[in-house]
């Protein structure tokens, strides 16, 4: 960095403890934008959000907006919404369908593949090479089972290398759809919070908090979520590599051995879906999928697959973030999709039975860090009982800080440029 801003990462991030400034220091936030958001793979959106040619939707990569477009040839493009002329926005709609984007300032017009088609009064640009004046693009783009990721770095690991153990989780999710495909079609709730994005990131696989933060809703509804996160739970937390983490409740669901128990229901209540699953996978495999259910996985840095919904984390500043949440839909399975939406609407977003209170905790944490003693946060829960599963992944009890430790180890590697 030019300004001589050189955080001592080995002092800020130590085994089982991290310094408070990592959550509030604006200089550190700027470093993260460069080293995480503008370099590593970041989740952008799902291909089902732009089903038709010329569909577009506004997404982001870190604090920067990105247009996710299905271009006139049917390819997905990630365009930067900045006119190369003077920086104006070439599109101010959140979503829509159009083959061209015209800047309102001087009428430069771009194809939805990014190329500059034309500018007004072209005589004034005699001899100019138009091909050098297209819209900026996210440098690399990858599609894993419909999930679109982007990276601003010209080189680096492939998406498969980056996803590491989290690949299994996306596969597990898609397997729960009788067509093997999920869709994101219900629009997003956008929940603003005055807290650092990493409080959200760490909370997603924190199995210690639900018994307390969500006790209000557990005590008045017949939610079975609480059982997964008790002291006697058999669910595990797992370090999937590259900062990806999960709470894996499959041991609990396999113990119950009841299809659809993961969704708090029974096969009898979803006959169409169950018939479709049996048809698609055969009865044995379908039964196993419907026992295991969908994953609870945080893909670093911004995609949280939360069983029946996804969250996308957008960092705004060191102390401001936005959570985008929506129901997952299984392509071609209307009877379960309605329930997925209804449950999601009850749980998440600014008025959700769960997320309003999680978000309250993020904000209190953030304000708490204004108090400068003790300087470090304590993340050692379950350090003594970490172990390896049969595939070699580090696992812990469902209420342990293992996910936070895994996130911070990866974070430190990325920030140290290793």
């Amino acid at each position, binding site marked *: 960095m030019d300004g001589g801003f050189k955080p001592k990462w080995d002092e800020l991030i130590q085994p089982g403890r991290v310094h408070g400034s990592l959550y509030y220091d604006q200089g550190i936030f700027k470093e993260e934008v460069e080293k995480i958001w503008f370099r590593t793979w970041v989740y952008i959106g799902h291909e089902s959000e732009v089903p038709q040619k010329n569909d577009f939707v506004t997404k982001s990569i870190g604090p920067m907006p990105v247009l996710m477009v299905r271009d006139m040839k049917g390819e997905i493009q990630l365009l930067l919404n900045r006119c190369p002329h003077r920086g104006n926005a070439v599109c101010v709609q*959140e979503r829509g369908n159009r083959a061209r984007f015209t800047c309102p300032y001087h009428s430069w017009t771009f194809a939805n593949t990014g190329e500059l088609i034309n500018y007004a009064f072209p005589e004034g640009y005699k001899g100019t090479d138009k091909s050098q004046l297209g819209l900026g693009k996210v440098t690399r783009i990858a599609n894993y089972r419909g999930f679109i990721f982007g990276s601003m770095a010209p080189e680096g690991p492939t998406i498969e290398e980056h996803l590491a153990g989290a690949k299994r989780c996306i596969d597990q999710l898609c397997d729960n759809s009788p067509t093997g495909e999920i869709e994101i*079609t*219900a*629009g*997003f*709730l*956008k*929940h*603003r*919070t*005055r807290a650092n994005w990493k409080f959200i990131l760490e909370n997603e696989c924190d199995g210690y908090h639900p018994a307390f*933060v969500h*006790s*209000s*809703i557990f*005590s*008045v*509804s017949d939610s079975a979520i609480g059982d997964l996160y008790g002291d006697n739970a058999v669910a595990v937390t797992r370090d999937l590599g590259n900062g990806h983490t999960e709470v894996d409740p499959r041991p609990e669901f396999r113990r119950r051995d009841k299809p659809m128990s993961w969704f708090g229901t029974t096969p009898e209540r979803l006959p169409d879906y169950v018939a479709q699953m049996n048809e698609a996978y055969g009865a044995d495999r379908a039964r196993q999928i419907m026992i295991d259910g969908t994953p609870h996985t945080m893909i670093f840095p911004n995609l949280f697959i939360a069983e029946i919904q996804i969250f996308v984390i*957008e960092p705004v500043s060191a102390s401001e973030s*936005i959570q985008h*949440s*929506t*129901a997952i839909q299984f392509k071609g399975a209307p009877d379960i999709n*309605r329930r997925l*939406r*209804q449950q*999601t*609407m*009850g749980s998440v*977003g*600014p*008025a959700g*039975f769960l997320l*309003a*209170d999680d*978000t*309250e*905790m993020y*904000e*209190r944490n953030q*304000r708490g860090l204004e108090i400068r003693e003790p300087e470090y946060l304590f993340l050692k829960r379950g350090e003594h009982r970490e172990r390896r599963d049969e595939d070699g992944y580090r696992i812990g009890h469902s209420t342990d800080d293992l996910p936070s430790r895994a996130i911070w180890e990866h974070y430190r590697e990325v920030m140290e440029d290793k």
Partner: protein
Amino acid sequence: MSTEAAEIEGPDILKEWVGKPRVYEKAFNPELYHEVQQFIFREARLQDIHDYDAWEALWTDDALYWVPANGTDTDPERQMSLIYDNRSRIALRVRQLKTGRRHSQTPPSQLARVISNFELLKSDSEDLKVMCNSQIFETNMRGDTMWASRNEYSLRRVGGELRMAYKKVVLINNNKAIYTLSFLV
């Protein structure tokens, strides 16, 4: 009551935010207008002071409480809404608030709302259809927040008293990222 009505339509570009055309009553019935206003003022007060039981008692058995996201006339059976509660989910919402462990309302938001611009819509049933605007000042541990909405009600006379069968709250910024909204809006 006169059935004379006026068609009011906004320009197309605004439709997403203004909503579908609605037919407003042109006739003015001062007694009815007063009764409707008093009912909605009372609802506002019960929300402001967190009198959850009294608020819940205002709903009919077939009630629907809807706070859409990303527009005015979205399809709540297809699109995500901030709140899309049937009667039993309204009851659940109230029960959660009453536990005292709904952390985002512990301590509760301090609230004052102003309700205005009442207009009656033409109704094709016994229910009274009411439009009004609401502006809410909220202060809590995070800070001060202003909320503004267009509200639409269906009110029904049950045993001589007005009840809410339907309440739709269209936050003016419902397409933006908004802070936690865990008080009764």
